[in-house]
């Protein structure tokens, strides 16, 4: 956790989670409990949630709005940027600056996604993300001019395996038809069609890509649009079949917005802890080497009728969360990998699919078939780089 999470940029939150000055969110950077705050001047800060006096957490709530944080143990108070404001009954002059909450030296954001780093030497965020910036743009722009904001609630699950399982999984096209067979069974039963990602005529256009710094993309546009459209049909409270959707939603372009509820059929994994896919932001929190917390936040749209956001929530609920039709089956496979990897006799796993057919572009990024393990190899190249680097 130290070599990975304390050395690179780590995703900490979306602008809409701390929209107003004084808004805060508690989260983590590797093993560090942190608070992401929005200062009075609008600047985001990330501080370690640990009183500089005796170490008590100064903030217990997942989110809120405050003028600062007061440790309830001995009453020390801190500003939103962690600066020490007051020590009760101070007996002698103290160096207040030295007793601030420890702040991440770097906090930067790109199109609403806020990242922080405890490594002051990291390159600019946009440089770190440079090759995936167009994919983040596409994700952010999937509903045209309507800004994305996170829903007020999130689905959270915990699994008994390494955090990298979740990162790998988001760009793993190979597992879809197997791990999620029961979802496809439900869809087939409801729609009478056989939904499939692989083996279809457009399969060749779908691809996975591995970029520098461990980032990766699975681009499903050519194969997923119809499959995902069918998922909309089984949403509770879906518009009646054959309805004029502009009329149903009461706005021009209602049909288009409705179809956008499945998101851009594309998954982006930002090493080490952010997955974008469907219409959600997925935060990955390592708790230990074999225990991981995952937070899924569905994205709603600004400036649309409530019914559009209602459909987005119902769509998200089909698959996500501990009782969803998709995520639990992934978690089950992670757990099974956790069990299998406890073997000490067998050391290696296979992650070689597509080694022969992947192509290396001029800029060094790799492209391959949707079912290939190209993205995962890219993630592990970055992992090895960070683990091997001098402290």
């Amino acid at each position, binding site marked *: 956790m130290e070599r990975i999470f304390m050395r690179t940029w780590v995703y900490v939150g979306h602008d809409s989670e701390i929209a107003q000055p004084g808004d805060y969110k508690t989260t983590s950077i590797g093993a560090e409990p942190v608070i992401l705050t929005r200062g009075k001047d609008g600047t985001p800060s990330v501080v370690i949630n640990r009183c500089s006096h005796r170490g008590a957490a100064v903030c217990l709530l*997942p989110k809120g709005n405050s003028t600062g944080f007061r440790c309830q143990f001995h009453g020390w108070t801190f500003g939103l940027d962690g600066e020490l404001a007051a020590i009760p009954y101070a007996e002698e002059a103290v160096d207040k600056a030295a007793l601030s909450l420890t702040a991440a030296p770097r906090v930067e954001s790109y199109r609403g996604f806020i990242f922080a780093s405890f490594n002051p030497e990291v390159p600019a965020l946009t440089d770190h993300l440079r090759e995936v910036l167009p994919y983040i743009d596409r994700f952010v722009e999937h509903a045209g001019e309507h800004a994305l904001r996170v*829903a*007020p*609630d*999130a*689905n*959270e*699950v*915990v*699994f008994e395996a390494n955090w990298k399982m979740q990162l790998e999984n988001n760009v793993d096209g190979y597992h879809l038809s197997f*791990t999620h*067979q*029961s*979802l496809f*069974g*439900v869809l087939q*039963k*409801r729609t009478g069609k056989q939904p499939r990602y692989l083996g279809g005529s457009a399969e060749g256009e779908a691809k996975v890509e591995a970029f520098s710094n461990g980032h990766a993309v699975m681009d499903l546009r050519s194969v997923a649009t119809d499959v995902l459209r069918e998922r909309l049909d*089984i949403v*509770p*409270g879906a518009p009646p079949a054959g309805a004029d959707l502009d009329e149903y939603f009461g706005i021009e372009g209602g049909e288009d917005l409705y179809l956008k509820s499945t998101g851009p059929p594309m998954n982006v994994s930002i090493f080490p802890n952010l997955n974008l896919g469907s219409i959600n932001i997925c935060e990955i929190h390592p708790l230990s080497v074999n225990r991981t*917390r*995952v*937070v899924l936040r*569905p994205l709603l749209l600004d400036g649309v009728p*409530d019914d559009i*956001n*209602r459909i987005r*929530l*119902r769509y*998200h*609920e089909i698959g996500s*969360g*501990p*009782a*969803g*039709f998709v*995520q*639990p*089956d992934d*978690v*089950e*496979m992670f757990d099974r990998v956790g069990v299998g990897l406890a073997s000490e006799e067998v050391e290696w796993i296979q992650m070689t699919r597509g080694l022969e057919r992947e192509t290396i572009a001029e800029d060094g990024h790799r492209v391959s078939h949707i079912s290939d393990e190209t993205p995962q190899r890219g993630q592990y190249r970055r992992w090895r780089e960070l683990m091997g680097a001098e402290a």
Partner: protein
Amino acid sequence: MSSAALVAEVHELLSREVHLLDDRDYEGWLELFAEDCLYWMPVDPLSEDGTLRLNVFYDDKAKMRDRIARLDSGNAYTEEPISLTARTFAAVQVEETDAGDGSLTARSNFQLVAYRSGEQRVLGGRYLHRLVRADGGLRISEKRVTLLGSDAPQRPMTFLF
């Protein structure tokens, strides 16, 4: 109907539901519900209207059937092997609604013990059942499951509540 008879009737219905669920008689369980019904668990335990909120599940009857079809498919891997469950409920309070059509609300507390793969979990919370009169009996028009910790990280919870 006297209030004691009403409470007894509701208690009997809730008992039947508990045993149908623990016996995994899914079809029998579905029959307890009205056609136009809602079975849901909010993420926020204080949420009373899940329409524009995120929920752990928010099922109409068609999606309840999907949920059951998935459990029966053999490919819902969190339930392979299947979770065994035993649940209890208590502190049932029945109230007639203002609608004047015999519809009722029943509040109760529950404990659900689930066992799978060497792990026994205890999940607790509160049920709210809205009941309507139909076909000479009571049918569930809404079942809200308020789970303690529904907004905290959970292991998969793919059995029925």
